[in-house]
């Protein structure tokens, strides 16, 4: 794998380090949505029994297919959402002012706290089977969509000015501009982020296919449910089969979908020079050779043109050439109205729920936030300790990279949640076992972001600077202090922002475990959320979720953004 470009890899956080009034409104909106779901959930059936999950190895292909289907549905939803949301945010400044901060907060919301709410409210209105299926798709969607939307929005707003003007002067309709300029320009970033999103989706799929809410037992046929059931029954062989199947699925997707896509999208690079080592894919080459390709293209030529003509009508000449030009249409007001209603609901319903939380419970949540914070810090520190040396090694030794990169990629794409049952099994007996397991799970889930960023950063250190340090005979620690660490700094920060967000999110799975039919729990805000879910204690669920959201957003704004700006200003390599 070639190291992803920074544009393609991680979206830059928007440049608003301070907490503003908009954040408050958005928090209210989030509270409102949660509260609304909880209210709807009261109409859900009181008892639910899911289908039996078979641990037979023959069932695995069936389960794998179901899981992939769920992922694909959620991904399709994410893609549509991304294209529309990002487009509106980029072209309507009034909507942008709400949409972008909203996205920022939404991606800090612990996804798993939403699951019971989504599930219950859906079962209230839909047949149970469909509701559970939909809920898992929505959950996966919320784990996939944010980084994609950021990437798309960012690429829309960074289309080179002259290309934009060319599309204006040559009278492109919005549709033509989208297909000729904007989508190709954003393609690489979208594909890289789609790959990341799929990895994130697997992580949550494992937790989303089986869910117990008091007397309600929701489960879906799928790999995640298989692994959970295997862990519950302490069936090590089944766990092994499950993980093996998962790895096979992930490798197949990589080889048959993502790699060919990357090779195909290499043409969309903006650089006017040919790349030294373009990505390779045997499957893509195979497709290229097939005679079928031309036949398919021939069949689709006419309908394609008719579709273009139709879309040209629907998305006609833009009034303005630039992104974020002033345009005014009612959607903005409609949207603002929706926000106002949601915020109001948040105040009323959320307030009522929060008033039911006792002082003791608040103290518990507060202590939980502290404990989880310590765990996140520990996980980040451990990740730093091993990813920096290894990442620098891979990033600076092309030969090592050729061998290790694909390996690391595959290992990284195994969702930590799949391994968690094994971890718990091994560690439960040890003193402080769950504590260690929780930190380990956070580590497993987030260390890869750091590693990939370190590799990218180390590979980007200019050769002449490395020569210079050789000539100056800087060695050991001095070399690290004067060259490597400063050069890595921006990449480390980017990686840590993503990693810390992921670690907070993982705490929900990590701090409270049901294993062999028994619940184990450590102190932490994640444990608060999960146990509140299990007990059906919605006021506490809302309070704990809110506490986590506020903490994560505050840490982002007050710590990471500042470090990020420092990195941008001082340690940028140009």
């Amino acid at each position, binding site marked *: 794998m070639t190291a992803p470009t920074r544009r393609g890899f991680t979206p830059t956080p928007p440049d608003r380090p301070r907490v503003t009034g908009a954040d408050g409104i958005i928090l209210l909106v989030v509270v409102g949505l949660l509260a609304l779901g909880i209210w709807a959930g009261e109409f859900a059936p009181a008892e639910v029994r899911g289908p039996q999950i078979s641990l037979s190895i023959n069932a695995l292909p069936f389960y794998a297919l179901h899981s992939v289907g769920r992922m694909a549905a959620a991904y399709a939803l994410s893609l549509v959402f991304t294209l529309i949301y990002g487009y509106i945010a980029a072209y309507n400044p009034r909507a942008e002012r709400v949409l972008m901060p909203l996205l920022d907060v939404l991606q800090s919301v612990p996804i798993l706290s939403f699951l019971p709410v989504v599930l219950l409210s859906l079962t209230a209105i839909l047949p149970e089977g469909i509701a559970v299926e939909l809920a898992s798709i929505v959950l996966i969607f919320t784990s996939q969509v944010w980084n994609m939307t950021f990437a798309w929005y960012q690429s829309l707003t960074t289309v080179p000015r002259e290309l934009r003007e060319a599309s204006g002067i040559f*009278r492109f309709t919005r549709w033509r501009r989208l297909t000729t300029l904007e989508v190709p320009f954003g393609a690489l970033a979208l594909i890289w982020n789609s790959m990341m999103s799929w990895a994130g989706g697997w992580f949550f799929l494992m937790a989303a296919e089986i869910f117990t809410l008091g007397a309600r037992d929701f489960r879906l046929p799928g790999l995640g449910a298989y692994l959970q059931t295997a862990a519950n029954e302490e069936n090590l062989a089944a766990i092994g089969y499950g993980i093996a199947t998962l790895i096979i699925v992930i490798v197949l997707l990589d080889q048959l979908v993502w790699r060919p896509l990357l090779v195909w999208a290499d043409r969309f690079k903006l650089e006017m020079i040919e790349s030294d080592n373009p990505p390779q894919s045997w499957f893509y080459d195979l497709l290229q050779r097939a005679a079928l390709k031309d036949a398919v293209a021939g069949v689709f030529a006419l309908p394609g043109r008719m579709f273009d003509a139709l879309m040209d009508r629907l998305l006609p*000449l833009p009034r303005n050439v630039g992104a974020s030009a002033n345009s005014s249409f009612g959607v903005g007001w409609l949207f603002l109205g929706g926000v106002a209603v949601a915020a109001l609901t948040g105040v009323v319903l959320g307030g009522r729920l929060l008033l039911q939380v006792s002082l003791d419970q608040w103290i518990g949540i507060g202590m939980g936030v502290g404990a989880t914070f310590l765990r996140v810090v520990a996980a980040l520190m451990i990740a730093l300790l091993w990813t920096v040396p290894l990442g620098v090694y891979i990033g600076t030794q092309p030969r090592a990279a050729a061998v290790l990169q694909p390996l690391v990629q595959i290992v990284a794409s195994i969702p930590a949640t799949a391994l968690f049952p094994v971890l718990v099994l091994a560690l439960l007996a040890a003193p402080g076992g769950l504590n260690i397991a929780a930190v380990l799970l956070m580590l497993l889930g987030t260390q890869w972001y750091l590693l990939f960023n370190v590799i990218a950063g180390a590979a980007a250190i200019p050769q002449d600077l490395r020569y210079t340090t050789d000539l100056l005979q800087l060695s050991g620690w001095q070399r690290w202090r004067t060259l490597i660490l400063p050069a890595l700094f921006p990449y480390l920060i980017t990686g840590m922002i993503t990693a810390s967000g992921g670690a907070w999110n993982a705490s929900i799975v990590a701090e409270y475990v049901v294993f062999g039919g028994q619940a184990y729990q450590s102190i932490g805000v994640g444990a608060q959320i999960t146990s509140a879910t299990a007990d059906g204690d919605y006021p506490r669920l809302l309070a704990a979720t809110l506490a986590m959201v506020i903490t994560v957003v505050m840490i982002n704004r007050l710590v990471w953004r500042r470090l990020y700006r420092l990195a941008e200003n001082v340690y940028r390599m140009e």
Partner: protein
Amino acid sequence: MATSTGAVLVELRNVAQRYGRGEKRFTAIEHINLSIREGEFVALLGPSGCGKSTLLRIITGLNRPSEGEVRYRGKPLNGVNPYATIVFQSFALFPWLTVEANVAVAMRARGVPAEQAHARAVELIDLVGLDGFEQAYPRELSGGMRQKVGIARALAANPELLCLDEPFSALDVLSAETLRGEVLELWTGGQLQIRAVLMVSHNIEEAIFMADRIVVMDKGPGRIIAEVPVTLPHPRDRKAEAFVALTDRVYGILMGQTQPEHVEFGTEPGQAGLTRALPAAEVTELAGLLEHVNSTPTERDDIYQLAEDLGLDFNNLQALIETAELLGFARVETGDLIITPLGETFADASILARKEIFASRLRRLPFFRWMLRMIEASGERSLRREVLLTALERDFPPGEAEQQLDIASKWGRYAELFGYDDAQGRFFLEEVATPA
């Protein structure tokens, strides 16, 4: 085609473009009155930042002016002008489309059926001499060839008004020269539908070589300061006496605006009146320029020759000359740069002596007087960069204010008027005696 008796194609009446609001309001161009007639090749010439590209975008309808009126064939222009196209400085080709698709897309967007568009694209590619490269991607082509694609694409839109936005400035010298000739051939050949050409340029020679009329602009705010007709017959000979005389004349117009000292220096930031912007010049380059002029026997040098000898582009040279004039090291007379005795002293001086001369000259400038006073007045004889920046943003648009502060910081640090701590972002006054 040097006649200018054709019907008026484009007419600008009292056009101005302003950005921002209130105190941060910034005028890019103002009081622009200009018409372009059928059969004319007009060049817009001026230093960078004079708003010539802004003007081009207003004429093509990409930007709407904040004041004034743009008419095309007598009708007010509303939105992008469908009869105009642009050849861009950076080519603005879609890297993911082949040469042929890049050209065809201009016609497809206007509703030309696919087969017809591709046939015409092949013709146009042939016309600009890229026969055989139809299926190549832009990144496989040299700069000159890419710009040919840009030209073919512009022609594909079948324009009446062809706009060229510094079309040759991203090319190497040889390709640029060849392409200039080819564009002129296309234009004078008259087989195309093009009624008029408007070219933005910062290259004086290029403008005289190609245009029938040169519209000279100056900055602060961007405005038209002269219109120079060029009546030399094509093909024009750069060595011809008339050509050289015209070159000197235009250089004189662009460089020789000597003004009384209070206008020349401007006022302090924050006070009434215009604050003189510091030209973006490097001190080492300034020293190099003065040494060069000083070493010529006559101690004066043709500016046009200087640009060639020093291999500097026009913008850079102009900033250097402006700085030299501002500090009293040189003055401009009829297209020549003449070094002053002070400039000679500076050129001959040692490093330390240069710093002293430089410092004493900077202290005369209102900009530096203001800066030093601001730093001194703050408690610890040090001042955050943002404070100065915020103050400057009252006189300059945000990006420009930052650039001004950067220039001031470089000059001031060279002269050792003050220091700057990058980590803390603070300007500070040096202690009187610094140890070792």
